[in-house]
């Protein structure tokens, strides 16, 4: 399983999107149990990447794992085109949510957990609004995995 301590690089985006993607990192960092703390740092040569662009797709973001299970690499993309087109919440919140959600995958969380609790890993819905940071439920899940 991917360690809760890893580095990544943000690439190919303007300062506005750099800030959105960094929001995802800061939203998880400092999630600590008695035995570990989530520590995501930046390294310009990291094989783990986050970027954003304009893509002909309906997804807001996409996570692709790679590498070995114990030294997971990944590529995360946010889709400025579909995020701009949606009217759900604000663009600012949608973009922050996407960054935090995709990094949740890097911390071993799955999509759409079956729970009534609020979760950054649930698909955003027009009936529920958009979270921008991981919830207590999400952080507890991460703590339980490491």
């Amino acid at each position: 399983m991917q360690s809760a301590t890893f580095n990544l690089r943000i690439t190919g985006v303007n300062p506005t999107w750099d800030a959105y993607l960094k929001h995802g990192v800061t939203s998880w960092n400092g999630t600590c149990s008695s035995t570990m703390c989530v520590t995501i740092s930046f390294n310009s040569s990291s094989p783990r990447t986050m970027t954003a662009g304009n893509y002909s797709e309906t997804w807001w973001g996409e996570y692709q794992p790679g590498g070995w299970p114990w030294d997971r690499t990944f590529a995360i993309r946010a889709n400025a085109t579909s995020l701009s087109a949606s009217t759900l919440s604000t663009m600012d919140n949608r973009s922050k949510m996407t960054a935090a959600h995709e990094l949740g995958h890097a911390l071993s969380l799955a999509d759409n957990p079956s729970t009534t609790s609020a979760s950054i890993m649930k698909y955003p819905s027009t009936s529920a609004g958009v979270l921008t940071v991981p919830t207590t439920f999400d952080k507890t899940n991460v703590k339980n995995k490491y």
Partner: protein
Amino acid sequence: MKRGVSRFGVLVGLVALLGGCAAPQGAHEYHPLYPEYMDAEDLAAAATDIVVGTVESAEVRRIDISAPSDSTDPVENASDGAGEEAHDASYVYTVLQLRVEETYKGSRAPGEVIEVKQLGGTFEGEEYLEEGATALSIDSTYALFLMSFDNVPASLLNASQASYIRDANGAFAPVDPRNSIGPEVVRLLS
């Protein structure tokens, strides 16, 4: 000496273990994040095309979905001013050829064959999967809620709420049983 043998044994075991998984295991995975729609009205409003049609054939392709924006708004154009070349964004898709029977929204004409892409498929001997998605089948008839693009085949609005299969009696059912608005959409399609 005994200790050395023990270490050797551990080393052999580790090599054997690694030999069993000399490459990352299994299929390449895609984990897309889609918005979900509150009701049928929301879903229909977001679609550029709503069609009923039969899948006649399918092929797997690697498609670059990059669609550079002309916008000068730094939010809408994520790479504007980034100072780096746009990254290749190629994904493996199964592209379905769908013959349209009916059009509820959009300009697709009955009889027209349109292309719809779904993430995943077997390409150059490697398997690619979209987490949580159900692949549409050849010879089946579906109602699809689509987003069309200029440069690549259309996409389903999301993996769970945008596809409905029609049975021999003409009744529709959600392809994904987890579809929270499925019954409401089926009522409208009927």
